[in-house]
């Protein structure tokens, strides 16, 4: 188990950085490559790493399947919800311009929220899918 | 009123279904419906003779094509015959089905009534589309009647029945109808026809061929196999549907198409017409010859029907006044004669359990009324006085003369001669030969149940009466050719 210790310590050290990096990718998407999708994948990668090192049950305790399941549905709701808000404000669907007084600011907010929706769903789906696959493997193994 | 005539049997059918648990009430429903139907149809006679053609458009199915009804003389003639004979057949069927202890009687009477509705629809159809719709409905509704016994044999016969009738109607007739629509821009029945001048003579000839063979119910060879096959059905079915409603729907369609789609003039000018007339003539002779070889009574009658139907087709294709009149009248005359014969055949089956002609020797002594009626019916089919059939054959003969087709006249003569032999053989043997040794004709055999017997007497009498008073049908047909 000794080699595992190194792994675990390493992982513990790494995971916060991965999460931080994900946030960077999310919010830096406006200026450089990246965005909700990539951030979601990296976010999910952190938990996949956690599960690989600490085992699936521990990962499921840290990030319950129920939560990631809700996340995967929630992201779609957030994305489409932004569109519905713009509708309610009297503009076309997903016309972010009305989200603020200044259309450019509106676009900013809109993109921020929809990217958040993408992040949520992608993170949720990736972890869900990983749990499903890993769960099958465990039962068979 | 035409709408009522179609709706009434349908209502009656559902009444039958609802009253299925009480046979007496159920049969009353059938009889009441049948009688009222005839009354309704009869009430149309006056207006039509006065030159009216009441019509009714139910619904426009696709732009320009409607589901519509129109009462004109030819259709009324068919409707009169079918609705009157339904009353008689119902009476007969009650006796037969009970006497024969058939199963599924409710289903039987239900589909019977629906089939009559189909026949009425064919009779009163205001255009080709409506005619086709009811024609197909008639095919489908009679299918359960043909396969009534649910035996393997019945199912096989049902397949032949459905197969031939549907293939001819779908592949030839429907094609012809759509083609007509494409050429003429209408599918309405118009006196004088709608096709004249719409396409070359070659195309119209092809169309005529499609129509004549597409109406499988007219049983022009080689599309006749369904009719003998359908004889597995209970006898009332054979009687009304395969001697009257279904087959007459076929020849009626041919007549109607000839008069109202092609028009007599156009028809006479097409190259295909004489060829098709000869095809009908061939059917007349061949079917008569086949009838000879059949020992099974119903099979013999079936082939006789095939032969007689082609008389009517031939009449239409003569493309002149007398041919049309003769053909139309033959619808009525043959119907009364042939139904008498089928009733008699059924009565023999119920009472003596005999199907084969060779085993009917001497049976006339125990069943004199039945065989007497058979004799009268035969006379009408052969076309000799004092039976109604002599009139229609006379006009058909006139038609061949007017068309200058002596060969066809000869065909009519020969065929009459043939039918004389194969039909009269039966009552003659029944009355004058000694019973076969192994039969027990003496013991316990008597006439069929009274309902059946009454029906036989009525139709036989009518056959005779039509010789004296053929005017109604003659007048109607005159109206047809003069419209």
């Amino acid at each position: 188990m000794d080699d595992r210790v190194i792994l675990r310590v390493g992982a513990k050290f790494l995971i916060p950085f991965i999460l931080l990096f994900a946030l960077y990718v999310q919010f830096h998407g406006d200026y450089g490559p990246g965005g909700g999708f990539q951030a979601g994948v990296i976010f999910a990668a952190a938990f996949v790493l956690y599960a690989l090192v600490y085992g699936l049950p521990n990962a499921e305790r840290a990030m319950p399947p129920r939560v990631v399941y809700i996340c995967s549905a929630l992201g779609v709701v957030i994305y489409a919800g932004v569109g519905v808000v713009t509708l309610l404000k009297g503009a076309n669907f997903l016309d972010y311009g009305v989200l603020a007084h200044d259309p450019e600011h509106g676009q900013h907010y809109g993109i921020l929220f929809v990217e958040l929706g993408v992040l949520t769903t992608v993170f949720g789906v990736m972890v869900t899918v990983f749990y499903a696959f890993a769960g099958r493997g465990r039962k068979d193994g | 009123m035409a709408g009522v005539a179609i709706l009434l049997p349908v209502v009656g059918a559902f009444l039958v279904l609802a009253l299925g648990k009480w046979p007496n009430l159920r049969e009353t429903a059938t009889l009441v419906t049948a009688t009222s139907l005839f009354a309704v149809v009869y009430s149309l006679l006056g207006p039509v003779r006065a030159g009216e053609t009441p019509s009714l458009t139910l619904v426009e199915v696709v732009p320009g094509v409607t589901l519509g009804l129109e009462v004109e003389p030819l259709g009324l003639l068919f409707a009169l015959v079918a609705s009157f004979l339904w009353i008689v057949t119902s009476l007969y069927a009650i006796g037969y089905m009970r006497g024969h202890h058939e199963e599924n009687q409710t289903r039987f009477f239900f589909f019977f009534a629906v089939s009559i509705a189909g026949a009425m629809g064919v009779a009163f159809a205001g255009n080709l589309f409506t005619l086709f719709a009811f024609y197909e409905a008639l095919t489908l509704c009679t299918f359960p009647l043909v396969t009534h016994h649910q035996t393997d044999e019945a199912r096989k016969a049902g397949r032949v029945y459905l197969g031939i009738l549907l293939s001819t109607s779908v592949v030839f007739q429907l094609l012809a109808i759509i083609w007509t629509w494409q050429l003429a821009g209408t599918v309405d029945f118009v006196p004088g026809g709608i096709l004249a001048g719409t396409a070359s003579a070659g195309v119209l000839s092809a169309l005529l061929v499609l129509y004549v063979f597409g109406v499988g119910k007219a049983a022009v060879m080689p599309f006749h196999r369904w009719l003998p096959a359908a004889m597995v059905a209970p006898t009332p079915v054979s009687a009304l549907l395969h001697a009257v409603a279904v087959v007459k729907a076929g020849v009626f369609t041919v007549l109607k198409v000839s008069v109202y789609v092609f028009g007599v003039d156009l028809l006479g000018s097409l190259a295909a017409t004489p060829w098709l007339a000869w095809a009908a003539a061939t059917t007349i002779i061949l079917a008569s010859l086949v009838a000879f070889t059949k020992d099974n009574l119903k099979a013999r009658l079936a082939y006789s029907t095939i032969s007689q139907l082609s008389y009517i087709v031939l009449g239409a294709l003569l493309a002149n006044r007398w041919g049309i009149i003769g053909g139309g009248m033959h619808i009525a005359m043959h119907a009364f004669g042939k139904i008498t014969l089928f009733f008699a055949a059924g009565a023999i089956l119920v009472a003596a359990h005999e199907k084969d002609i060779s085993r009917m020797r001497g049976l006339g002594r125990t069943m004199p009324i039945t065989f007497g009626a058979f004799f009268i019916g035969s006379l009408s089919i052969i076309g000799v006085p004092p039976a109604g059939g002599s009139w229609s054959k006379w006009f058909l003969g006139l038609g061949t003369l007017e068309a200058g087709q002596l060969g066809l006249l000869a065909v009519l003569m020969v065929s009459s001669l043939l039918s004389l032999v194969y039909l009269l053989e039966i009552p003659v043997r029944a009355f004058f030969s000694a019973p076969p040794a192994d039969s027990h004709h003496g013991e316990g055999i008597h006439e069929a149940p009274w309902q059946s017997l009454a029906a036989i007497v009525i139709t036989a009498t009518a056959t005779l009466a039509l010789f004296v008073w053929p005017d109604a049908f003659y007048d109607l047909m005159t109206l047809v050719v003069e419209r």
Partner: protein
Amino acid sequence: MRLLGLYNYWVVIVLMMVGFYTIIARDNLVKKLIGLSIFQTSVFMLYISMGRIHGGTAPILMEGTDVVYSNPLPHVLILTAIVVGVATTAVGLSLVIRINEAYGTVEEDEIHSQDESL
């Protein structure tokens, strides 16, 4: 440059066809999915090649007026397509796992022979 352009397209086409061939000629269900992803990835390259401009840079706005940016639209389309591709792969692989549970094999011909015997 013309030749290089064609070379670029043609190699991409060869890659696509290798993937396509793997899909239709291989019996192993996992291998087929690998082939599918090669096929799709190569199609992505075709798209990205279309958006390229010689001497261009990544389409991220910079100071200065004479900067040439490569066409961003194919990039956007392909981002979507990549995601769709991985979604398909995930569903496909779950099917493979279930098929393996039901048949005990992921070779197409063995599956067929099992079902024929049913």
